[in-house]
Structure formats: C-alpha cells, structure tokens
C-alpha cells in the first residue's frame, strides 16, 4: 500500500514538474515577428533594423522583420490589434500617429488604447531648416519674413497628422505666423523637393538634419535641450518659443498579450538601449535614445492624447 502511494506521488510530482517547466519554458523560444508599418528606408525601418540585431542577441531568437505598409501606418496598426497575442507578434509604433489617426479619421481600424506599448526606446525631435544658400539666416529672420508674407513660406514635412505636420502647426501658433505646410510621403520625398528649391523650409527630423548637414542650415531643434549630435543648433525654447515636438518610436503589442511576456520584451529593449554599440549607431544617425517602459509609455500616451486633442480642437478638426 505504501509503495503504491509512493509511486503515485512520484508520478504526480513528475507530471507537475513537467507541466510547470513547460509553462515556464523560456519565452521567447520561436522567432519573433516584428512588424514595421512604414516604408523601407524610412526612419521607422532604419531604427527597427538597427535594433533588430541587438534584440536577437539579447533575446536569443531570430527577429524577423515584415512590412505592413499603408495609410500612414494605419494598415499595420489595425493588423496588430487583431494579431495573435501569444507574444510572437509585435510591431513598431509611432506615438503621434497612433494617437492622431483615431482622432482625425473615422475608421482607421483600431483605437489608440488597443495598442499596448512595450517599450518606447527612441525620440527624434523636429528641426526647422532652410538651405545653406537661403537669405534666412536665423529663426528670427524666418519669423520676420513669415509675418511680412503670410502663407508665402512653404514648409515641407513628412506626412499628415505626424510630428512634422503638427510641429509646423504648433510653431505657427507659437510664433503667430502663417506658413504653408506641404505634406510629403516620407522624409525621402520631402528632402529632394527641399534641396531642389521647390519648398523654402523643411520641418523634418534630426535624423535628416544629421544626414544633410552640409546642405541644410538648421534654424532650431524642437527638443527640451540641445542635442549632442547637432551641438550648434539652438532649441526653440532657448530662442523664446515654447515648441517641443518629435516622434517617439517604440515596440507595441496586441491588446491581450500577457503581462509577463510584455515585461520580458521590455527588459530586452532596456538592455539593448544600454549596449554602447547600439547607442553609438543611433546617435550617429541622429536618433535619441529614451527609456519608457510599459507603464511609463502608457502614461506618456495618455498625456499626449490630451495635448493633441486640444490642438485639434484649436484647428477645428475632430
């Protein structure tokens, strides 16, 4: 009798251990599917690909990048919220886009709250630039010219309802001027128009500023403090304009992804952000690293929702 009991206990405990270990089997064990919602060669693609290599090292599995492009990211985001929450499908997300699209469009296919941020790892501030041969030498020149010729200055930027677009609107409001914003499909379309003299100024990202610093005169950067990779560029705040804007980029998950898996990925991102090689690479390209875990990202998003809502109301859109 005792022997039987012993055997049964042994079998039961082995079973428990077996199930327990498979439940706690190391996540992730399969390749991770990383969706990029924007065109290849763009900022979101480059930051994702730079991160990919290091994520693979930290997580120990392949990270496979796939594209779901369209609608300013909306196609990808709407697929993300319907994706399998088993932890093997994540997507890059752009903070401004995921907030503004549901506000400004009738049916983008998702709600802002459905997108669960895992980690927000980088921030690219806006910059305002003119060509090196332009008559406009400083931000004050710009504002002065704009006041004298309302609507005459054309400012190119990437997209509609993006940090470039809203940045142009926010700055117009701050400075009390009126410029004409011209949306392009991606920075890659905006820059040639700028270089060729077809638009007067560019409200673009620091990454473009770093790449084209020979051809651009950057009037100001829309960050809280000066950025290390553009040390000679004053901030808008320094020059008296309370204008801070840029794109936050991070990793996001489908709405029902389990918290423990989210935390594992968040920790991986945090580790990647500490790797000196990654830091150097991102800074070299003009991307600033930030660290917002899942809870802090959600808080950031909520703050920005209120902020953007008020701007849209000012403009009469909603």
């Amino acid at each position, binding site marked *: 009798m005792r022997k039987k009991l012993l055997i049964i206990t042994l079998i039961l405990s082995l079973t428990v251990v077996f199930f327990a270990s498979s439940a706690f089997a190391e996540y992730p064990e399969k390749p991770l599917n990383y969706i990029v919602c924007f*065109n*290849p*060669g*763009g900022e979101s*693609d*480059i930051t994702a*690909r*730079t991160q*990919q*290599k290091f994520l693979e090292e930290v997580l120990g599995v392949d990270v496979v*990048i*796939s*594209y*779901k*492009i*369209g*609608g*300013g990211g*909306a*196609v990808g985001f*709407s*697929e993300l919220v319907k994706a399998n929450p088993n932890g093997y499908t994540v997507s890059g997300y752009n903070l401004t886009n995921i907030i503004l699209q549901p506000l*400004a*469009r*009738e*049916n*983008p*296919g*998702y709600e802002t709250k459905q997108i669960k941020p895992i980690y927000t790892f980088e921030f690219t501030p806006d910059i305002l630039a003119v060509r090196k041969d332009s008559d406009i030498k400083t931000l004050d020149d710009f504002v002065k010219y704009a006041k004298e*010729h309302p*609507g*005459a*200055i*054309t400012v190119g930027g990437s*997209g*509609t*309802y993006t940090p470039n677009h809203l940045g142009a609107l926010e700055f117009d409001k701050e400075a009390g001027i009126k410029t*004409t914003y*011209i*949306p*392009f*499909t991606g920075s*890659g*379309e905006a*820059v*040639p*128009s700028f*270089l*060729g*003299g*077809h*638009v007067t100024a560019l409200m673009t990202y620091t990454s473009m500023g770093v*790449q*084209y610093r*020979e051809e651009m005169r950057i009037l100001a950067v829309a960050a809280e403090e000066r950025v290390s990779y553009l040390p000679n560029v004053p901030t808008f705040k320094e020059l008296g304009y309370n204008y801070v804007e840029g794109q936050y980029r991070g990793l996001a998950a489908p709405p029902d992804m389990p918290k423990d898996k989210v935390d594992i990925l968040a920790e991986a991102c945090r580790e990647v952000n500490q790797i000196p090689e990654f830091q150097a690479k991102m800074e*070299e*390209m003009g991307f600033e690293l930030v660290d917002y875990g899942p809870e802090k990202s959600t808080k950031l998003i909520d703050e920005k929702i209120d902020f953007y809502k008020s701007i849209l109301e000012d403009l009469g859109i909603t």
Partner: protein
Amino acid sequence: MLYTVLTSFAAIFTIKNILFMIFGVTAGMIAGGLPGLTATMSVALIVPFTFTMDPITGLVTIGAIYCGAVFGGAFSAILVNTPGTPSSIGTTFDGYPMTKQGKGQEAVFTATFASAGGGLIGTVILIFLSVPLSRVALKFGSPEYFWISIFGLTIIASLASKSVLKGFAGGLFGLLISMVGVAPIGGDVRFTLGMPSFQGGIQLISILIGFFCIPEMLKMAGNLKKHKMKTVEMQSGIDVFKKSFMNVFKKPVNFIRSSIIGAFVGVIPGAGGNIANLVAYNEAHRSSSNPESFGKGNPEGVVATEAANNATVEGSVVPLLTLGIPGAPPDAIIYGALMLQGLRPGPELFSGPNAKITYAFMLSFFIANLLMFVVGILGGKAINKIVTSVGHKYLVPSIIFMTILGSYAIRNNIMDVIVMLVGGFIGYLFKELNFHPGPVVLGLILGPIAEKGLVRGYLMGQALPVPWMIFFTRPISIILIVLTLFSVIWPFIKNKRDAKNERGAA
C-alpha cells in the same frame, strides 16, 4: 580617382564576390519571373542577409539581385502575359504575341540581350554622369512631376492600339482606383468602403496580375482543345540566338535610345522602371517604320522595354548614392542597407575612405549584367521549353496558385489576393470589350504621382498671385508641356504626312 577605380575593380574580382553575384542574378531572375514577387521585394528579402557580409560583397549581391529581378520580369511577361515586375509591363505587348506565334525562345533571348545591353549602357551613365544628372534630377519639383504624369498618360494613345477613347477611359479608370486609400495631402481616408485594409490603397501588383494574367488564364481554361495546335517551336537553337542578337544590335538606335531613356527616367526619384519601359516603348513605336506591327509581336518592342527597364536600375542608383534619395522603391531599401553599414550617401561616399566601396558597387553592375546575360541565355532556353511544353491544364491552376501566393506576399494581406482575383474578373471584362490593360495599369501607377504633383504644386504656388500659374512658369515644366503636346499632336501630323506622300507617289 583612376587609382580608386582600378583598385575597386580589382576588389570585385574575388571568388566570393563573383559567386554571390551569380547567386544574386539567378535568385533575382527567379524572383522577378514569379508574378507577385517584385524587384523591391527581392531586394528587401536579401538585405538582412547582407548585414553580416563585408560591405563590398553585400552591396554587389544586392546590385546583382536588383538587376536580375528587373530582367526576370521579362520571362513571365513573354511566356504567360504577366509582367513579373511592373517594369516589364511593356514587354507583354509584343513578347506574349511572339510566344503565341511560336517565337517564345526568340523573344526571351532578345529580352536577354536587350536587358544586359541596357544595363551596361546604364552602368556607363551611372559611372560618368552621376553628379550632373543628380543635379538635374533635383530640379524636378511637384509641378514637373505633375506634367511627367500627364506626359505618361498621353502615351496611352499609342498603347490603346485601336481606340484612343477607350485608352483614355481605361487610363481614367486606373486613375480612379488609384485614389482609394489615404489622400497624400489632407490625410482623408477615401473610397475605402469602410475597410481598414484599403487605407493602403489598391496594390499595383494585384491589378497587374489581375488585368494581365488572370484573363489569359481564364481564356486558356476555356479553350483547352484549341491550344493543342500551337506548341511547336519554329526555330533551332543557334539560329534563334543569332536572330535575337540581330534584333537588338541591327537597329542600334532603338536599343541605345531606349537605354538612355531608361537611365534618365530612373534618375528622377519616384519615376522608376515602371514608367521607363512604357516611355521607351512609345518612342520606339513612334519612330518605327511600321508602327502597326507593334503589339502583334514585333521584337523591337521587346528590345525597347527590356533595355529601358534594366538601364533604370543603374539610373535609379544615381540619386541614391549622390544624394541619399532613392530613384526607385528598391533603392529605398538599399538606402537602409547603406545606412546600417555606416555608408552615408553624399559626396563623401565618392571621395572619402568609403570611395572604394562606392566605386566597387557601381562597377559591379558591369559584371552583374554580363553574368545575367549568361544565366539568362542558359536559363531562358530551359524555362521557355518548360512553360511551352507543360500543358495548359497544368499551367493554369499552377500559375493561378503562384499569383495567389505572390499577391499575398506583398504585405501579408488577404485583401490583396481578393482584389487580384476580382481585378482579374474585371480584367477579363475589359479584355473582351477591347480595353487594353496597359492604360489602366498606367493610370494606377501615375495616379498618386499626378495627384501629389497637382496638389503640392498648388500649395507651392501660394506665394504667387495666382497659384495655378506655377504650373506654367517653370522651365522644366514648359519643356514637359511641349513634349506632351507634341506627343498628342504627332499622330495627326504623321497621318497627314503619310497621306500626302501617298498622294505624291500616286
């Protein structure tokens, strides 16, 4: 500089690089030949693998795949009337009729000669004219892009073959469906029937397959018995080879002109191979001594389109390397690869420590095109044999299967496949009503370019008293307007002149 050129050339010739280039060219050709996989996708697929290679090897592999893919599109265009990539749309116009006449082998070989040759001319232009060309490319602003698309649409007149009115209507239909999605300016979500997947618009590949391939497949399915007669290959191997060579080089004007058109159109960012092949075709048609033969199996048409589209490959690299601006979608991906390797496009790429890599990349296109030629001849014979001998009853479902896979692979969205099939049914309808698919697809391609040019140009004109004047007061715009008008009026002048000659002769 000469020293750099020589050392770069030497750097390419390692066993490893040559092997990778052969692999690249072959893989590219296969990918390009499969309807649904485009050059952009092929490049996107290979780029991650190149991160672990050293820069020169990585870049020459990418270049080889790019060349191969653009060339590979010709195979499916010629053999099953499906442009394997959008740059081979024009190749179907004369390539497929040639296949139906039993001259598929000749068409494929002609395409091989033309592609390799066009690529070589393109490489020469890339190496020697990069900097001046890129400066000219920058001068193209939104109003110019608008006029380019209008010019492109007037080409419809030659593609519509029988009815100009139907051609324009088809083009307008293409423009209509190009508007589905998010408005480039304004951000409105338009014509999506409430479905989020349509925010990305109607995919070009879906419509390409739908309008070119599916109708043919359906017709094949409905005419199985009739087909049994025409599988005989009419010419022997060496003769075909020689004839194809003659097709390209005996009329050098067509070949050289098409290559130059291809390279130059490639330099203009955003224009790309999709349009270049049609512009070259149009020019070949216009300058030909017997234009009526175009569209019925005239090899000149194949030469024009294939030379142009391969020259575009090198042309589109020009703005990429000089300015960091992609000339065509695959270049956007190469841009990402360059950035990740730490190679920043711009003047420093040509003179700094990375100059060797840059020149190696450019020079590698010579080798890639030659390798492509060899693989093309060897493979072309085999592929042609396979496709023409496999009975339609096996071909049709298999090809439809591949197109389903291909349309799904665009962006992993089942809607693209559904659109492809529904587009196919509409394409069948159009075909029976004698609406040529070319204008429809052209409208779809040019729609966004035209709209962006129009609206942005209008916005740019805000500084002027009458904003619309901006479209008529810029030098390049004026040149384009003149070209467009010429293109529209030319058929009438030609008719009058021909009639006059006939009267004079009689």
